[in-house]
């Protein structure tokens, strides 16, 4: 509808007709073209280039995603301290503000770049691409990419990683996988963190695994505590099974 009457608006075409002509000839002013452009195509293109780079240099790139505070940085600190000397590692830290996480990682002695996304709620392929250039990535190494704490938006943006690792801590609801199915559907591994706190909580690990399994039957699970170190060997075995291949 147009603003001034009920004429039907844009759909209605002006026609021109001579007496005797049966059909009006609509005035041809506009045309519709099919374009079929994937809105995320540009990101996918850049991410595909990142992925090709990682693969041809035997770099295992992992995209770590979780709600804020599930323990991504703590897991990385411990992982780096335990695996350093055996496996070269580097980290890209994504946060909206501050250098705090990069400083924590930097204290472990590995190379790290902090990406501050400002208002942005996720990392994208181009941010990772630019961050990569500031790191020395050794062959047969692991590049950990800690995404912005958010279970919604990072699910949509491929970074070129080999796998997404989703972290849920037992202080969250076990129904997170149902509330954020996109993320659990996109992940290869789920780390269930802070299991040292289980005796004090009524988090049902079995139910959490079941909910996640409904969204993604192929999802693997490892239960860990980044503070006590419990279960971390399972995570290291998962990493060692993938790095340098």
């Amino acid at each position, binding site marked *: 509808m147009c603003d001034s009457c009920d004429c039907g608006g*844009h759909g209605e075409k002006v026609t021109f007709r001579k007496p005797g002509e049966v059909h009006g000839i609509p005035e041809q*002013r*506009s*045309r*519709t*073209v*099919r*374009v*079929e*452009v*994937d*809105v*995320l195509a*540009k990101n996918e293109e850049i991410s595909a280039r990142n992925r090709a780079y990682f693969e041809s240099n035997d770099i295992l790139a992992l995209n770590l995603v979780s709600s804020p505070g599930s323990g991504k940085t703590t897991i990385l600190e411990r992982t780096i301290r335990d695996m350093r000397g055996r496996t070269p590692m580097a980290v890209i830290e994504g946060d909206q503000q501050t250098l705090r996480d990069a400083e924590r990682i930097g204290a472990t002695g590995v190379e790290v770049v902090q990406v501050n996304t400002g208002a*942005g*709620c*996720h990392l*994208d392929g181009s941010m990772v691409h630019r961050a990569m250039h500031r790191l020395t990535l050794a062959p047969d190494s692991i590049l950990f990419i800690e995404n912005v704490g958010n279970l*919604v*938006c990072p*699910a*949509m*943006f491929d970074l070129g990683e080999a796998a997404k690792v989703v972290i849920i801590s037992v202080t969250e609801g076990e129904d997170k996988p*149902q509330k954020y*199915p*996109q993320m659990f*559907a996109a992940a290869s591994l789920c780390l269930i963190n802070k299991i040292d706190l289980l005796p004090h909580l009524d988090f049902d690990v079995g139910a959490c695994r079941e909910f996640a399994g*409904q*969204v*993604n*039957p192929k999802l693997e699970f490892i239960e860990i505590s980044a503070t006590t170190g419990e279960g971390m060997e399972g995570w290291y075995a998962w990493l060692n099974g993938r790095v340098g291949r």
Partner: protein
Amino acid sequence: MHEMFLAMSIVEQTRAAAAAEGADRVLEVEIEVGSLAGVMLESLEFCLEAAARSTPVADTDFRLLPVMASGRCSSCRNSFEVDSFFAPCPACGKVDLAITGGRELKIRSLTIED
């Protein structure tokens, strides 16, 4: 959230596609939004208006076309429409679903004036 990023990409890609067609004006853009694309329609609509403001596509009608997601039961191969990642199969009752459509976000067509 990410709807603003998506809106800015849509505006940019609309302008690129219109330029490639040699268009003077873009009257309408149709955008397919899958129900499992992780996009909120109201939010995207709002962001598109903001992203298009004071650009050559400020008056363009960005039309969002919702696309219902579909899935196939891995157990009995039945195909059906779904509204979540874990809908039980209406035929056999199992929750063993492979999503086959409805995750897309794409610009389908442009209506332009030359």
